[in-house]
């Protein structure tokens, strides 16, 4: 990884007051985060909350709370972001009930009687970020096709970038079992990519 743009360097630059460094830093993690958020949202929540909104909020909170982040390992910034995203999703889920009740008030700006008003979010539209790129879409399709625990292993170790030990803790399995699970997950993933090879 190029030393100038490595996460550590960027983090150091932000810590020393260079706000411009935040954009590339976040950009480096944006796709990973988008995938995690996509699978972090429950099916019901997906129809109300867009991945991009969660990303946006995560980004702002990360910015706001950056002072609280301490660099421990190359992956710690990503896990920190993932944790913030989890909170944002939890908040979104909590406010869902409220928002339903407040729907009337929102109608002022988003209703059929106001054609000029902004469109309500289209629940069938996947996240723009995830949808507008062919690669990302294909990745999601394949991840969708995996069984839940396989997908979980890939999300933890490949997307969030946890070490085998950390992922094992998260899954409540032994290191070996986790490695095995991941191995099978990748094998299945590859089979989706190259159908007929196995």
């Amino acid at each position: 990884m190029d030393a100038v743009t490595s996460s550590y360097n960027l983090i150091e630059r932000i810590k020393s007051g260079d706000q411009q460094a935040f954009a590339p830093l976040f950009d480096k993690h944006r796709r990973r985060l988008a995938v995690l958020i996509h699978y972090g949202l429950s099916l019901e929540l997906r129809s109300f909350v867009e991945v991009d909104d969660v990303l946006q909020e995560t980004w702002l909170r990360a910015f706001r709370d950056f002072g609280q982040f301490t660099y421990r390992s190359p992956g710690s910034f990503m896990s920190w972001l993932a944790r913030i995203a989890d909170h944002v999703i939890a908040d979104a889920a909590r406010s869902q009930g409220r928002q339903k009740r407040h729907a009337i008030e929102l109608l002022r700006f988003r209703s059929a009687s106001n054609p000029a008003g902004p469109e309500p979010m289209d629940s069938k539209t996947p996240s723009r970020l995830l949808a507008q790129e062919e690669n990302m879409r294909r990745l999601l399709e394949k991840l969708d096709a995996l069984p839940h625990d396989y997908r979980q292993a890939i999300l933890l170790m490949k997307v969030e970038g946890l070490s085998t030990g950390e992922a094992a803790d998260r899954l409540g399995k032994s290191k070996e079992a986790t490695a095995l699970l991941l191995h099978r997950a990748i094998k299945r993933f590859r089979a989706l990519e190259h159908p007929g090879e196995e």
Partner: protein
Amino acid sequence: MAKEPRHDAQETTASGAREQLLADAVAEYLDRQARGEATDIESFCRIHESLALDLKPLLEALEVIEATLQPRQPAAALEPDKRLPDFLSGHKILSEIGSGGMGCVYLAFDERLGRKVAIKVLSPRFRDNAVLRERFMQEARAMAKLRHPNVAHIYSLGPAEEAPHFVMEYLEGVPLTEAARPLTLRQKAELMHKVALAVEFLHQHQVIHRDLKPANILVGPELEPKVLDFGLALQSGDHATRLSSPGDLLGTPNYFSPEQARASAPLDVRSDVFSLGAIFYELLTGEAPFRGDTLPVLIQHICQDDPVLPRRLDPTIPGDLQNICVKALEKNPADRYGSAGEMASDLERFLAEEPVLAVPTSYARLMAGKIDQHLRELQGWKQDRIVSESELDSFRKLYDRLVDREDAWIMAVRRLTLSQVTLYFGAWILVLGATLVMLFNYPSLSGTPAVLVVSAAAASTAWIGVRCWRQEQRRIAIAYLLAFCLLLPVALLVGMDRVGLFTGLTRNDAALEFFARFESFKRTTNAQLWWSVLLSLPVYSWLRRFTHASVFSLVCAVMAAVLSVVSLLRMGMLEWLDSDPGKVYLELIPFAVLFFLAGALIERFRYPADSRYFYSVAVAATFISLSGVALFHEPYANWLKRVVPRTRGQLEYLFIINAGIYLSLQFLCERLPLAQMRAVANTFRFVIPGHVLTSLLLLGLAASDLWEKTLSSAALRHEARFFEIVLPLAASLFVFGSVPRQLKNFLATGLLFLAIGIVRLEQDLFKQRATWPLGLLGAGLLLMLAAADYSPLRMAVSRLIRRQP
């Protein structure tokens, strides 16, 4: 080793062991990546040579994921095509004049009309997204319908076969803050007024700008501002698009509202009001209200800190403009102007040299902290005897007044403008109409139709009132809700009349019915009146909770007072009025006590501020009932005559006895640990000197009268003389009694009655004797001299006293 619960028979075999080795290798590969080490498939496979054949495809699959998750190279990804198109919508593209998150703006030439136009094009990276493209065009279509002199005009939309774009007015102007630099304050206010009206226009067409900033408001040579880029953030799906190019947000969040910076609440028009405030701030002071070296710091400033007051930066800025600016910059949207239009009208008031309505709550916040600190210090000074109790009280009162300045809408309600007067006039006519239906018989409007008409009036005022309140049109809402407060009991009465509820007569005597006294009135009973008022009370109290407007606790207290009068009616007040008016006043006393109790309960248990109207009613009832009893209650008069036989009646004693009662009430109130109740004590204290001295004066006059009838009586002469001397003495006592607590009314009343006493002495004891005025002159001079040189005198007196024993 692996204690997998899902143990396959397979795994126990050799291939199972191999699979575990393979899995461990993959895990190791990923762990290296997690540690930030450089990884390379080839070299890694060389280490695990025996597994390489199976390992390599797996690692390659991982790299495919990795590649997808890596950010694209910015330049390539964001601007895949930097070349300018030649033509769009048939206009020749000349150059690029700007670019933002959504796309870029080209300068083009409309050859048919021979004018320059600006063309906004959706960025190529969004063009593949059908939903986004559709939204872009849809919003452009909606905005093309908007025409306002201060809003950039959209001429046409690009045809479907070309890249998504729309053609708009090309503006040659400079950003607002730059244009404003050489202007006078008045011109700046005029400019801001136009901008606020333009933004209000957008809001009325359901467009929230969301990105108001000086760069988005161009000012032409005629000082005509034009608002640009409206609604783009919104139409492009809000923040999400900003996020895909973080530089956008990094550039100009200085004008973001707290809710926008936090991205927490759904934004409404008041978010734009905040941005307008931030722009106005910069217009006035030349500096943005919130600055920060880093975005987190900036966001923190926006969300938490009050900006430096504009007048601190430039003392020539009028206070009214500062009020407008700070009001728009309130953190809580509810404290801001409810709309850009409201801000515009306040600017208009400033331009018309009228006082503006804005009273920023942040002033109170600004002061409250310091004031609390100062009050604590004053408390300490009081304990050290540096300041007196009364000085502390007056400071506290003044400070309270500073902090509790009323909201703008209350001031708007109090200002008698044409619309306000019309509002109340209309409300009053509405109430009068309903009252007529209640009072009189109309052959063509009786029974159910009457009920329907009056209920419809009450219900519609309530509905409109609540709706206006929710929409922050409080000035109007209050008028409707007040009308509703009066209409509600009227509607209940009409309803009860129709249904025939509570038709029982007071003590079965039609003569005791209030409405029966008037020939032409309907036969509404006292009981119906009582119930209608009683049933309305909870509604008033709900309105108070709903609006937090204190006027409804006033309504509550007044209606409770009405309820007590109606209670008296039900007890037979009309009969007493004819035969024994004193009884009315006597029966009023328990109600006064009830109001005190109600006030104390309300204050003690939840709503201290609401209790004050109940106390007011209680105090008024106490004054009325005690005075009335003293004047008209015959058993009391007889008792007085028996106990104090030397006067002609009760009038002379009325004031002094009542003053005694008030004095004890004052003590009682002061001892109670309730702030409002303690304030009531002041009211009682206020009337005491007047009562006592009036009483002494009347007693003296009565004694002189008696004496004049039988001039020979020595006893009567002594009595008359006694009162003549007592009056000025008592007055002097009150004059000096004013000292400890700074009671100005004690001083004023005492001085007034002292003058009366001196004149009375002159009329009798010192008739035509020059010694009296001379003595007064001498005494006055002596007192003044003594007062000027007070301490030696006091020391002389104390020496004298010490020497005596």
